[in-house]
């Protein structure tokens, strides 16, 4: 039975909804706050900011991460910047415009009220980060500098060289460490979350594995926040870190939390192309490069193998500038990626594999000088040089789209609560505010908005509302913990036992999964391809269950961790195929070849698909159930998303 989901959006005009929420929320008095404990899993931007902020309020916070240190979370790798509607450049920006750009950028598949709140919070985030000592880029005047990102015609992106994510994360991390020092946060590093524990219908704890000792542990609390990132690693090759994975949110999904829009994946247009079949990780070249770099391929196929500097301007096709004159090289990511795929499919791709396009700085260097370009992008150019052994100051970069971010995730209501009471999801882990396509420099904004400025209110409201129940403390000896731990142990034991008999390594099966998902649930999706994907993933699941080769013990064993994650990614891959199959329209990053305009742009079907798809897990090998949340647009008119 499919149900209609209620997002719990507060009453009132769009600009007052969040104020109304805060005006009507339940509070917890300061002396009572220390009686509540909150588990926060993940220490990226959303997790670290949530844990620090909740601790500052007075709650007892337990913070979990898989690394040795909270500072290693993958937010650290975000390069380009963070959006905020500060309008310092006086170029026409406003909360409304950031809201509008984000809704439009997401191809009208995000919730208005959430996105508006995000835009409202954006300005406070910059103030917050500056107060932490985040060294944002500045002008000679001493004021903060801004640059542009895709999908916007204003300069609202704040940055710290090409290491914005690092600096924002270290800011949140330092605030977290301050609370650890005060004794308000207890750190649990080296822990992987393997289950959520539900007691009397409420999330009351988690089961973790200490990855260095193999110990399985139980942790109780009064609310649980999952800020464990996205699931781009289902593609095997992506810009995500080696340890990024879906396991925490997938285990919550298995316990009953609905999974929203799993097929919404962001494929970033500017990554260093794949070379060889040994790679485990792809590297992003920041979108900010498109402020100065021009994207092109040769007009003629026969020029593709030539030295690019020998190709005269009239033989170059600056296809983004040609197709999208008003946004040019800063067309949004989904559109730029698809355009790159198109020209490569036409046989005009460059590089050895023919799966690359040029990102050329020749004109910018001529205009502004090499020093200016070095100042802006030096670390990115160095990174490119190291990886490819080519000097991008001399010859254009070769780039190609790669998986970068997932817009889907656990379905949450306006308070960021999943369908499991007391279980919240923040940052990339939730299905979020980005609809079917995220704009550049908006992930950092959303993670920090969730953690600093939303969860401290909504978790408080939850604790205040359920005070009577929650003040009855749950003990880790409760039967629910007992059985959850038993299941976790059994699964690990089974993998280790089966692993003695099989022939296929985790990496081999994982690579195969990645290829299926990339080929069939990637930049172009068709009914036939998606059906094939389902069948092929089922076969890989069988391989995993019967033919896995796993060596080593239950102590520190990266391969065992990977096996557990792969198990979940296989199930997720199947769900993505189903979701993509059911969404018989194109929107944002989800491009169904059956649904396109005559000029090859995504063709939405608002009548039938202006909704969030939220999937219910029905057991291993069972067909999941698709639920819906209708998206209501009261402030923005649904229109064709054009960047021409």
């Amino acid at each position, binding site marked *: 039975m499919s149900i209609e989901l209620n997002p719990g959006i507060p009453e009132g005009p769009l600009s007052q909804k969040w104020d109304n929420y805060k005006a009507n929320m339940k509070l917890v008095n300061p002396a009572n706050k220390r009686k509540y404990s909150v588990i926060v899993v993940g220490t990226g931007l959303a997790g670290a900011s949530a844990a620090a902020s909740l601790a500052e309020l007075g709650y007892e916070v337990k913070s979990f991460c898989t690394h*040795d*240190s909270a500072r*290693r979370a993958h937010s650290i790798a975000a390069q380009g910047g963070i959006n905020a509607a500060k309008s*310092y450049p006086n170029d026409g920006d406003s909360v409304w415009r950031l809201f509008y750009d984000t809704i439009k950028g997401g191809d009208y598949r995000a919730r208005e009220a959430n996105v508006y709140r995000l835009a409202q919070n954006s300005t406070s985030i910059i103030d917050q980060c500056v107060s932490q000592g985040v060294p944002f880029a500045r002008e000679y005047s001493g004021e*903060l500098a801004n640059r542009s990102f895709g999908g916007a015609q204003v300069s609202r992106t704040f940055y710290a060289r090409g290491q914005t994510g690092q600096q924002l994360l270290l800011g949140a991390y330092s605030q977290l460490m301050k609370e650890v*020092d005060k004794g308000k946060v207890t750190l649990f590093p080296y822990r992987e979350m393997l289950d959520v524990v539900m007691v009397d219908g409420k999330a009351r704890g988690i089961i973790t594995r200490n990855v260095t000792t193999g110990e399985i542990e139980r942790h109780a609390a009064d609310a649980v926040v999952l800020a464990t990132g996205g699931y781009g690693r289902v593609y095997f090759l992506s810009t995500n870190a080696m*340890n990024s994975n879906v396991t925490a949110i997938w285990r919550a999904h298995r316990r009953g939390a609905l999974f929203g829009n799993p097929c919404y994946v962001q494929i970033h247009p500017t990554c260093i192309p794949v070379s060889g079949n040994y790679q485990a990780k792809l590297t992003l070249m920041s979108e900010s490069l498109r402020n100065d770099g021009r994207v092109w391929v040769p007009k003629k196929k026969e020029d593709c193998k030539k030295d690019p500097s020998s190709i005269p301007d009239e033989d170059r096709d600056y296809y983004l500038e040609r197709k999208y004159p008003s946004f040019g090289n800063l067309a949004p990511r989904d559109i730029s990626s698809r355009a790159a795929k198109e020209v490569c499919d036409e046989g005009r791709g460059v590089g050895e594999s023919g799966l690359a396009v040029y990102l050329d700085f020749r004109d910018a260097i001529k205009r502004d000088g090499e020093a200016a370009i070095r100042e802006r992008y030096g670390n990115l150019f160095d990174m490119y040089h190291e990886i490819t052994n080519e000097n991008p100051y001399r010859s254009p970069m070769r780039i190609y789209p790669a998986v970068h971010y997932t817009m889907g995730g656990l379905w949450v209501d306006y308070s960021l609560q999943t369908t499991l009471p007391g279980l919240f999801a923040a940052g990339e882990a939730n299905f979020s505010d980005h609809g079917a396509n995220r704009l550049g420099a908006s992930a950092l904004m959303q993670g920090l908005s969730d953690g600093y400025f939303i969860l401290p209110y909504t978790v408080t409201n939850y604790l205040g509302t359920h005070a009577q129940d929650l003040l009855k403390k749950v003990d880790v000896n409760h039967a629910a913990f007992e059985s959850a731990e038993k299941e976790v142990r059994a699964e690990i034991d089974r993998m280790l036992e089966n692993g003695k008999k099989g022939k296929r*390594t985790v*990496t081999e099966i994982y690579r195969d999964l990645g290829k299926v998902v990339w080929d069939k649930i990637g930049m172009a999706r068709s009914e036939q391809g998606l059906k094939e994907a389902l069948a092929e993933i089922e076969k890989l699941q069988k391989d995993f269950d019967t033919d896995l080769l796993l060596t080593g013990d239950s102590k520190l064993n990266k391969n065992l961790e990977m096996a557990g994650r792969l198990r979940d990614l296989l199930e997720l891959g199947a769900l993505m195929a189903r979701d993509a199959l059911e969404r018989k329209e194109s929107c944002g990053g989800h491009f169904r070849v059956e649904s396109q305009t005559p000029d090859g742009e995504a063709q939405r079907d608002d009548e039938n698909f202006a909704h969030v798809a939220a999937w219910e897990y029905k057991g291993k090998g069972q067909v999941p159930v698709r639920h819906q949340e209708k998206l209501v647009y009261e402030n923005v008119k649904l229109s064709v998303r054009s960047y021409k």
Partner: protein
Amino acid sequence: MMSASQSKTINIRLRVWRQESREAQGFFEEHELKGVLVDMSFLEMLDVLNEQIIKSGKRPLEFESDCREGICGTCSLVVQGQAHGPVRGATTCQLYMRTFTDGETITIEPWRAKAFPVIRDLVTDRRAFDRIQMAGGYTGAKTGPHADANAILIPKDLADRAMDAAACIGCGACVAACPNASASLFTSAKVTQLALLPQGQADRKRRVIRMVDQMDKEGFGSCSNLQECEAACPKKISIQNIAIMKQEYLKAALAADFRAGMGSADGGA
């Protein structure tokens, strides 16, 4: 245009450190790898090695990595006797096999420092760095409304210098490279960043005293200006930061108001 090395391969011999647990005796294990593509990264080469080890039924080699683009600070190998290997200004994950020659024997060890005990094989426990951060590596700002971000102007060169120090990725190569296993470069980078910025002034003295004291407590050695840390640092953090830290420490330790404050419950100043 196309890198000439595209499909060039080399054969190598590896001597890798194996150690079952913190307490166990470690040893070097030898492996041969044939047909290694020179455009592979060093860690991809180790991935290939691990597939080979797993296929032979043995326990894979444990080493850490995460972002594989030089920013998370997770990877941490001593390659050919050098922290992060022979290439300057790069992490282990940014090391490419084109750095090595055909037939070369490559020795791979973990960070070696008392404060970074080995957990298994090439994985060490670097949580001591977190404890140094906890002691004062923050401004004390809480979540909530703050003055507008442009309310305090920060000269560009100051912001740039703060950013130079803030670029530290906390990998620990400075410690691994230092004959004294000193964490001075790491600690001083944070001290300097916050000492330069107006936002770091309120607890400036408390910060440097507590962070330096914690560094000593963790068992890191002292700095004797050997400059190995700067040479090994993948982010080229300057040892000038250490000079600034020493200055900051002296100033704080000599400040009468601060000494008086140290006696109070919250650490004062």
